[in-house]
């Protein structure tokens, strides 16, 4: 998985490419630990993300809980497979998906 970032003040967009699974989730977790402090807007761009497993969901939930307190979080450009994972796990109600 490749992580790209676009940062603008307290707004951060994270663009993921590949698979967010057991093997790659720790990378994203480390990245967020370093950058989530003080953010008011967090955007995940999944345009190039193939799929997500529960390891990835765990990180999105943790990020959402932090952003609930300090700003907003949006997940955009999800493909059909990821949309279905969000749907069956109830994450489509928890996350803001655009």
């Amino acid at each position, binding site marked *: 998985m490749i992580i790209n970032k676009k940062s603008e003040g307290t707004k951060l967009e994270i663009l993921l490419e590949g698979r967010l699974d*057991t*093997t790659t989730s720790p990378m994203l977790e480390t990245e967020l630990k370093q950058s989530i402090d003080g953010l008011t807007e967090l955007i995940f761009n999944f345009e190039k993300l193939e*799929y997500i497993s529960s390891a990835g969901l765990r990180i999105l939930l943790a990020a*959402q809980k932090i952003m*609930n307190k300090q700003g907003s979080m949006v997940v955009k450009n999800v493909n059909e497979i990821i949309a279905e994972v969000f749907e069956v796990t109830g994450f489509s109600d*928890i996350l803001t998906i655009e």
Partner: protein
Amino acid sequence: MKEITIDALIENINTVTAFVDDLLDEIDCPMKSKIQIHIVIDEIFGNICHYAYKDSVGTVTVSVEFQNTPKAICLTFTDNGIPYNPLETEDPDITLSSEERNIGGLGIYLVKRNMDEIKYEYINKQNRLWMEKKL
């Protein structure tokens, strides 16, 4: 039937996925089913790596078998680790808010949703998880 036996280490997930992928390519498996199977491998193999052997390194055998009528794939994961029946995991309450949600049980829940039939047995000191998905 084809199978692979490999150390239960996270870094081996890609080897297992590639092994199964090659077989799925031979039968022209639709992309969506293929990705759903990737997720299942990630969840089950990942679980075994994290929990089955505690601090020692054990092995996992993954076997793949295809059926014709109806067209289906059977995936079996066998390990010698501590007895664990993933089907006993309670399904998560998917209606809770983000603040109330905890993450337990989501992986197995995704597996249940991605496969059509799942059976677990513990025999000869082995965990055997058998799963079928119609293609």
